[in-house]
């Protein structure tokens, strides 16, 4: 089956693989594998790619070396069926998403033992993600076919209780994020369409069980690999599971489809460490409407009701508008005169409004340069962009010039654009909070604030005029999802860039010796939402009455408003109350966080020597809390 259709076709991937194999340096081979993993590939190519990468990945996993563009990720697969054939596909899909995955496969069918008993090997592996891949044949619900709905529900709730116990153990024992795979129906129907009306019919049972799994997962902070849903939607073509493969090797997922399975797991892994894409950049002519607005005029473009083609473009616009509602930033990158391009947004049938577009670039310069501009306008990395353009030549140039930007291959028919963009899984989420829903509006408000700033005569007047109110609370259950999200996706204003799963954040926050702060900011233009997170804890490298700031990060949209000064105020008073005498600041430089290199110096910390085992680039800072520190900001603080 054709799969990974959004990836570009390589002219001869087999030959490129044979060529790359001749490279003698393992890390160089890994680099080649990472580049080639971005092309469309079947399972044989994928297995060869994995071999090309394996020595380099092994070296990274052992800590012998690092590859700066790859983030290490440890995934444990606990399954009730054979999954070994899926491992190469998971690792290669990881490479494509800039993850250096090591995958641990628990012995076949031993998933309960791995979680309920001490498993020294799994503990040593220290998984960040534990995937529970179960199937319909494993521990079937023992019910007579004539069982009532109540009996079915009782059996299902017992099964869910067992799953929840496993999830809890995974969190407690390994501090791992759990990913639960939904159950793919295995049996052919017994009753035909009547199937779902018989409570204990195999298909009805699995449906009910999956519904219960989804609900429990939502309550318990468990992520889903919703294989049942993907199978039902037809993502896997005719069949995810081939009976012959089950009989031959107890494989639930056919090897043919392993690349797609690996991709679906890898995108969840990437999302869990904040590596999903953030911004959809759209071309205009023949992407958002039919025709060329510069030639055809606003009235001449094909858009909206009345023609099949106009409706198809409208449907794609609606999909983009919905993505914006869930927090994906929209941008435009088009070869057009700016005034002509903007005028098109006055077309009465446009589903996207000019105000939905956070960065609007229309000119006659090359698109690679314009995409760079868009990234800097929005303060996000090129690796956060997805670029959708109907023109294959433009796609090709952007792929060559900016390999970090995701550029999906598009189907011939615009009617299939929404499904293609969705299938590529660029925007995989691990949470959805009210802040996401208002992000688009926040970008618009930010533009207004920038305008207000240019009117204000001086900085102080501007800041006072914003009427800012900062609220700081410890990270509790209400702040957990959004805080974790921010921890994992903030790159620029981030002092240590430590990534944590929800379970790990919860563990730090619940330690009575730690101080954690979730910070919200409102101003006269509206609520900015949760914009900053700070986690501090005692550390054995420092005296016990000194508090190490383990993580401090802030959304760039509130930069330059003295929020950090106000946060320091709250932190200092909380720390003093808890009996601490000093704060220790830590700055770990990355490619992206240069803007905070002098953060602690600006706040009045003095540099101190690094502890013996710290990396050489990391700097350490100290602030004595026994002297009063003056606060310089114009923010009303509620803590």
């Amino acid at each position, binding site marked *: 089956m054709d799969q990974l259709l959004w990836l570009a076709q390589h002219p001869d991937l*087999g030959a490129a693989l044979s060529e790359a194999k001749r490279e003698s340096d393992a890390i160089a081979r890994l680099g080649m594998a990472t580049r080639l993993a971005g092309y469309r590939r*079947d*399972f*044989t190519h994928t*297995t060869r790619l994995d071999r090309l990468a394996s020595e380099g990945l092994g070296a990274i996993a052992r800590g012998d070396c690092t590859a700066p563009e790859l983030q290490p990720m440890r995934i444990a697969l606990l399954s009730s069926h054979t999954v070994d*054939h899926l491992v190469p596909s998971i690792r290669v899909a990881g490479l494509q998403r800039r993850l250096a995955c090591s995958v641990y496969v628990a012995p076949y069918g031993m998933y309960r033992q791995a979680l309920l008993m001490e498993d020294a090997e799994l503990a040593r592996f220290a998984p960040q993600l534990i995937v529970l891949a179960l199937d319909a044949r494993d521990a079937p619900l023992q019910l007579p076919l004539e069982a009532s709905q109540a009996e079915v529900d009782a059996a299902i709730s017992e099964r869910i209780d067992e799953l929840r116990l496993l999830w809890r153990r995974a969190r407690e024992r390994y501090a791992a994020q759990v990913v639960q795979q939904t159950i793919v129906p295995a049996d052919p129907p017994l009753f035909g369409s009547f199937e779902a009306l018989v409570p204990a019919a195999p298909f009805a049972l699995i449906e009910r069980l999956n519904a219960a799994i989804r609900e429990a997962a939502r309550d318990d902070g468990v992520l889903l690999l919703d294989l049942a849903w993907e199978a039902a939607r037809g993502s896997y073509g005719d069949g995810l599971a081939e009976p012959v*493969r089950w009989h031959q*090797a107890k*494989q639930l997922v056919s090897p*043919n489809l392993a690349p797609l399975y690996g991709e679906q797991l890898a995108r969840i892994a990437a999302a869990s460490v904040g590596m999903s894409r953030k911004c959809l950049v759209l071309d205009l002519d023949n992407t958002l409407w039919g025709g060329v607005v510069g030639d055809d005029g606003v009235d001449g473009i094909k858009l909206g009701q009345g023609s099949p083609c106009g409706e198809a473009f409208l449907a794609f616009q609606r999909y983009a508008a919905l993505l914006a509602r869930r927090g994906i930033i929209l941008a435009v990158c088009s070869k057009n005169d700016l005034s002509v391009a903007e005028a098109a947004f006055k077309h009465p049938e446009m589903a996207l409004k000019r105000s939905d577009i956070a960065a609007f670039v229309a000119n006659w310069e090359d698109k690679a340069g314009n995409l760079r501009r868009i990234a800097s306008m929005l303060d996000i990395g090129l690796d956060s962009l997805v670029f959708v353009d109907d023109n294959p030549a433009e796609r090709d140039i952007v792929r060559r010039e900016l390999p970090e930007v995701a550029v999906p291959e598009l189907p011939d028919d615009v009617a299939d654009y929404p499904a293609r963009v969705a299938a590529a899984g660029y925007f995989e989420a691990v949470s959805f909070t009210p802040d996401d829903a208002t992000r688009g509006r926040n970008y618009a408000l930010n533009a207004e604030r920038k305008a207000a700033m240019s009117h204000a005569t001086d900085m102080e007047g501007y800041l006072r005029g914003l009427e800012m109110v900062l609220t700081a609370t410890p990270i509790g259950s209400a702040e957990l999802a959004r805080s974790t999200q921010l921890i994992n996706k903030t790159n620029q204003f981030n002092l240590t860039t430590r990534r944590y799963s929800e379970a790990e954040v919860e563990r730090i926050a619940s330690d009575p010796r730690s101080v954690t702060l979730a910070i919200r900011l409102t101003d006269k233009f509206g609520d900015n939402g949760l914009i900053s997170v700070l986690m501090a804890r005692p550390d054995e490298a420092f005296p016990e009455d000194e508090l190490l700031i383990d993580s401090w990060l802030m959304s760039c949209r509130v930069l330059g408003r003295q929020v950090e000064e106000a946060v320091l105020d709250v932190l200092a008073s909380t720390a003093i109350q808890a009996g601490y005498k000093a704060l220790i600041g830590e700055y770990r430089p990355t490619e992206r966080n240069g803007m905070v290199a002098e953060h602690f110096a600006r706040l009045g910390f003095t540099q101190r020597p690094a502890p013996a085992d710290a990396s050489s680039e990391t700097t350490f800072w100290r602030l004595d809390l026994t002297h009063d520190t003056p606060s310089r900001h114009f923010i009303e603080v509620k803590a």
Partner: protein
Amino acid sequence: MTEADVLKELTAVFHDVFDDDSIVLSPEMTANDIDGWDSQTHVMLTVAAEQRFGIKFRTAELESLRNVGHFAEVISKKLEAR
């Protein structure tokens, strides 16, 4: 497709699956003669061969494919029957 052609194409399948272009197949070879030809790679071989030749093996045929000669023979028969 002649038997020789089938064996040539099948050799390419083995090269891909084992990522080893030095493998030379002969009809009398079995799983014991090739390093790494275990039950897991056997599934890979059957699936890769299905893809390459555009055929489908029956469950009953799978075991006989552990011998290269039989492997090629089953493929030839399937191609003829089309």
